């Protein structure tokens, strides 16, 4: 079996990104070649694949056969297809019950940034607007290893008007500076894109609520919300969050778009434009080089409409692992003509009824502070 070179794989992946098109057969062919490359050059993934019965002599026959590493595996081993000394950037994953985080390392950010821009252009900038980016996400100058921060820095650099602002410093949100910059954008007549975590958005809405004020955005503005409320004690229902956001910022609900991504991936999902007219449920649409698979507890693929755990096969993860398994729940949504299946994201059953008196991981974490 001959294994493709990194340059050859990158060229094919970049072509798919540039074309924003990849049919099922082409996707699988590329995924299989990428898998064959990764099990040779990424030793921990190769060992894991062999333990699942796959190797150079036996490649997956279907996309759902590609062994998927749990996202937490990035905290256990260095998952990279290149030597450590060639790492030029890395993004850090959050900690676990063991208190350790992980790294998603990159030899080059070419694929990552190409994937970010192509998706963002399609899903957030179909009008090719040059916006001002007001970012309620980590500032990459302070936190260079935040994938979300880097994503928005890339977008602001390539698609912004050069006057972007960053308002999240550590855990502190500078709501005052943010609101001043919203006012300035209004004065300048420049439409903005607010990139925000759900939690930061709540904090801004709280600040506006305390002032009994709104912060109307210039016409053509939009909001990209991401991250949910993971690890936060305060959770606000999406319907309420989006309703209040639309009201305070004077934007239509369809201008509020959720992004779903992970540090362990190089690509992102966005709310499908066709489902943005409502707040819920919205369908998460992947770009053509990213495919979701929903599986049951035994890893068997589930048909559209059935809830299970979400796996991602991300061809832009050329330098690490293409198939990632998560604990996020969702269901596939039938693909439209020629497009990949979308995803209904259900989170992790927040508030599900407890069934026993046993200690659980959540309680233990709370006790450990």
């Amino acid at each position, binding site marked *: 079996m001959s294994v493709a070179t990194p340059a050859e794989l990158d060229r094919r992946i970049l072509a798919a990104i540039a074309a924003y098109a990849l049919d099922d057969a082409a996707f699988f062919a590329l995924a299989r070649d990428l898998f064959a490359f990764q099990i040779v050059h990424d030793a*921990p993934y190769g*060992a*894991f694949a*062999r*333990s*699942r019965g796959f190797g150079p002599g036996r490649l997956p026959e279907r996309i759902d056969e590609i062994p*998927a*590493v*749990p*996202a*937490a*595996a990035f905290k*256990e*081993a260095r998952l990279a297809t290149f030597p450590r000394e060639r790492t030029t950037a890395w993004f850090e994953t959050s900690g676990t*019950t*063991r*208190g350790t985080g992980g790294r998603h390392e990159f030899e080059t950010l070419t694929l990552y940034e190409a994937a970010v821009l192509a998706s963002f252009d399609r899903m957030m900038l179909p009008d090719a607007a040059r916006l001002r980016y007001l970012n309620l996400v980590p500032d990459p100058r302070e936190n260079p290893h935040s994938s979300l921060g880097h994503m928005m820095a890339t977008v602001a650099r390539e698609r912004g008007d050069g006057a972007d602002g960053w308002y999240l410093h550590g855990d502190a949100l500078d709501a005052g500076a943010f609101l001043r910059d919203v006012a300035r954008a209004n004065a300048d007549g420049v439409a903005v894109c607010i990139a925000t975590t759900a939690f930061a958005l709540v904090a801004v809405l709280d600040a506006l609520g305390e002032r009994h004020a709104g912060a109307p955005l210039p016409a053509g503005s939009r909001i990209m919300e991401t991250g949910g409320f993971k690890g936060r004690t305060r959770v606000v229902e999406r319907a309420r969050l989006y309703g209040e956001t639309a009201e305070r910022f004077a934007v239509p609900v369809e201008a509020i778009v959720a992004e779903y991504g992970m540090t362990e991936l190089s690509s992102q999902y966005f709310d499908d434009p066709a489902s943005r007219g409502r707040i819920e449920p919205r369908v998460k649409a992947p770009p053509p080089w990213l495919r979701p698979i929903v*599986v*049951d*507890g*035994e*890893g068997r693929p589930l048909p559209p409409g059935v*809830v*299970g*755990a979400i796996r991602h096969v991300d061809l832009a993860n050329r330098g690490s692992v293409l198939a990632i*398994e*998560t*604990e*996020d*729940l969702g269901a596939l949504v039938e693909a439209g003509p020629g497009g990949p299946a979308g995803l209904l994201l259900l989170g*992790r*059953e927040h508030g*599900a009824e*407890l*069934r*026993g*008196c*046993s*200690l*659980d*991981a959540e*309680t*233990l974490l*709370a*006790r*450990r502070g």
Partner: protein
Amino acid sequence: MAERAAATGALRALPAARIASFLADAAERWSDADFAPRVRATEAIAARLGYSAPVVEYALDRLFLGITRDALEAAIASELGTLGALDGVVERRGAPAAWARGVDRAVIVSSETTIGVALAPALFALCAKCDVVVKDRGDALVAAFFATLAEEHPAFGAAARARVWTGGDDPSEDALLAGAGTLVAFGRDETLRAIRARGGTDTRFVGFGRRASIGFLARDEAAALDDRLAERIARDALLYDGEGCLSLHALFVEAEAEGAALARAARTLAAACERVAVEFPGGERPAAVAAQTASYRNLAAFRAAGGRGAVLRAGDATLVVDPPSDEPPPFLPRVLPIVPVSGDDAIAAYCAAQRLPVQAIGVVWPSPRAVALAERIGAVRVAPFGELQAPPLAGHHGGAPRIADFVRWIDRDA
């Protein structure tokens, strides 16, 4: 107050020994798997918890077969000196004569428990002749048992009540909690804090928080592990899908991580789990739990592929050998981590590092060494494997007395 007096008047007229007899008689009826109320309750419990029918039947057998007059009387006598202390003033050697008078009302809030956990405190509160109100689960097991009690003697019809209500939403809840003489609650830390805050100034609060149980195999025991012992360990791990505080959540084995002894013990346990899973099939799991379980299992498989530990599938159970020692047990259904340790010090260090609130330790034999380990790690019970999930009624409940919290002593000085 008048309402409570009316509720318990008839019960207070009964000698405690007769109350214990009625309770035991009712339990005996419930020990029959064909007893109609039990059949209905079995279905309701299976529907609520998702456990398989054999698991529910086993739980009800263990629950009701354990409620005997001897067990009730032994627990009461060990705590109060004599059963008669509940009926009036009794002489006590070297101490003032005294009467263990039951508090007027005992309220038991059991919103997050498995099968019948609220029943034991309710029985002892009735022995103390309290007016008892239980917040029942949706399966109404306690209510159904109370109905049988009322058939045994009408006094229970007024004194023992079980209701289903939504915490914080029911307007009568405030008065009920504030007026309790003794308030027993089961639940998560924040649940217990909230309930405790709503008790009255004089309310005695008895909280049972969420806890975990562990097992320990000493070096020679691991070497001698046979199918019979392995099945007892497997039953402790698999019953109730690990959701009880007495479920086996982690098994510590005195062995080297890479050694043959650990591998052999794990294989023997896996085979036993497979057999036990046939007798006690696992229950339905929510998609979120299934996803977490798969993720934990696959992460262990990833580690194993890299040369660290092993994963053994056994029916619907998973055994993870040599998980990272700085990682807490997963608390997932039918997932048992097998942790190699050098000895008791390592177990104590693990529990301390993870701040693991240990309820019980399962062992081959409850030796002085096991009791010493329990004392070190804060556990409140040492039990032989196979009995971990069946605490005797005559024993303490989670380290607390069975009946002492339901009485106030009235001393008659000489």
